[in-house]
């Protein structure tokens, strides 16, 4: 099966800020659908996003979005929606006034713009009771929703989101994920930069990992996982050994930890939200052998057993270290 046509292609793309290099000769191809842009601070994520959205120009090389160069290109910008990382919004305006004004600037007909903005505020789940407040009175999460709404104003074909989960509570993140998944299902391609990797993991089948202005890896999560042992071969011993770190989700996380400790299987653990426990095992083989019996003996229900060593976070850690 041939690969789908890329929506974004960068070829030998570099960008300098004076003597500081933002992007270093990257070549990458981003397919349609949901793609996560992953990297530590200063990796070049925002620089790449700003070039994609026509806010910056490349210093050398070329980047094309939907086959066109983004700088000063209204016909392309009509097909791109952008949600910046920064929280800055005009604090003295109400969301409807701000969105309607941006809608008019975007070319939406006067007769349609009000309805369109209301629909979008509903879509991003901003409760109507907050619409009359000014943006300065909004929480971080509400500002994120309004920013997403402005990115959707002109029905973009490609949505570029810089850290869209920032400031959202767990419920808000879940809602944001749902909105993005719905948009993707409607055929909108989405590029998301985020440092919250577990969320990208469940959301984005395709990831691009950046570090020091370079593309460290790019592809589907499945491909990257498959390549991981090869990537590790030269780096660490025991590439073929079993994973030692797992996520466990159970109905009794504290008891489960006590049981595993008592059995001498646990080297460390961390309790996380929603009954999730991250565990570090001394002997993975013994863990696998004994776990079913231990669960049955103590009446503990295990809902999820997932290796951390194959998580997006792990892929990211191994690739960027």
């Amino acid at each position: 099966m041939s690969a789908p046509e890329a929506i974004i292609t960068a070829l030998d793309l570099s960008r300098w800020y004076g003597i500081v290099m933002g992007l270093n000769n990257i070549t990458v191809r981003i397919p349609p659908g949901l793609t996560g842009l992953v990297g530590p601070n200063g990796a070049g994520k925002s620089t790449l996003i700003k070039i994609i959205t026509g806010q910056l120009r490349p210093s050398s090389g070329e980047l094309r979005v939907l086959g066109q160069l983004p700088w000063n290109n209204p016909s392309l910008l009509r097909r791109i929606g952008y949600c910046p990382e920064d929280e800055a919004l005009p604090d003295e305006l109400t969301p409807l006034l701000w969105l309607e004004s941006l809608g008019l600037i975007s070319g939406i007909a006067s007769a349609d713009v009000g309805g369109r903005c209301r629909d979008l505020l509903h879509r991003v789940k901003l409760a109507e009771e907050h619409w009359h407040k000014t943006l300065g009175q909004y929480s971080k999460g509400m500002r994120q929703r309004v920013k997403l709404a402005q990115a959707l104003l002109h029905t973009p074909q490609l949505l570029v989101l810089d850290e869209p989960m920032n400031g959202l509570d767990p419920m808000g993140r879940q809602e944001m994920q749902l909105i993005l998944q719905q948009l993707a299902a409607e055929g909108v391609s989405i590029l998301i930069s985020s440092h919250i990797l577990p969320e990208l993991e469940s959301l984005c089948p395709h990831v691009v990992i950046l570090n020091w202005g370079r593309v460290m890896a790019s592809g589907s999560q499945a491909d990257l996982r498959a390549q991981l042992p090869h990537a590790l071969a030269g780096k660490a011993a025991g590439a073929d050994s079993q994973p030692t770190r797992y996520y466990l989700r159970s109905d009794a996380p504290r008891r489960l930890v006590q049981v595993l400790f008592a059995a001498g299987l646990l080297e460390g653990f961390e309790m996380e939200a929603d009954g999730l426990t991250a565990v570090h095992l001394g002997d993975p083989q013994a863990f696998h052998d004994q776990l079913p019996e231990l669960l049955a003996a103590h009446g503990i229900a295990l809902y999820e057993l997932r290796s951390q060593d194959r998580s997006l976070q792990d892929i990211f850690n191994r690739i960027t270290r």
Partner: protein
Amino acid sequence: MNSAPKPAAMPDTPDLFAAFRGLWRLLWRRQLVWRRLLMHALAMVSFTLITLLVLAKANDVRAFYGWVVVFYFLMLMPLGCLTLCGAMIREEAAANTLCFFTTRPLKRSEMFLLFYFGHIAWLQLVFLLQTLLLFAVGAGVGLSVAGFLPVFLICQFLGLMAWGALSAMLGMLHARYIVLGLVYGLVVEVGIANIPTNLKALSLSHHLRTLLVQHEGLNAVFDNRLSTEGWGLSILCLGVATVLFLVAGAALFTWRELSNAPAER
């Protein structure tokens, strides 16, 4: 309620008039916040009081005309333009909100012009109010100045367009546009404008003076030294200067990123 909204109907070519209306709605609401309103009100009250003091002391129509030319047209208007039009895009960039405009489906030059016309429209309104105050004070102290109003308004309109375009261009040129503006003012509008050669035609203030002295009373202030001829050429020069400054400003905004990137910071 989060079902897919109906896609927005997008025209193939941008409706610049609708875009201007969108920008204007943002602009005037933002100008009417308390802090800015207070500043405007303070500036207007101060100017009115000073005018009242000057005119009450001199009680002479010549003082009114002198005050209008020297202070109002050559100080207050250019500085008002410099602070508002010079900052029009820089302010958005500094607040990290410029991206909401530069990622809209418009050319950067079009966006620059929308910003310019939005800010100039606001300035015209503010200075119109200032004009009313000025002439009310003049009439209040018993001076007969109403006949000067038509020339005054024409000069104010043209002057604001030209000073505003120059200021918008300086804002695109450098972050220290106020300093640039003051240097320009000293060299061109104060220096070259007063050199008795044809070089003075390079200054905007020369053309504004030429237009203002079409009113006889004002020409008398200058002891009829200024020629009342060539007003058509002065209007043309102010218009051409406005267009040239706008073209240069739009070209600079198309060339410069001004996206709060490390280099810009």
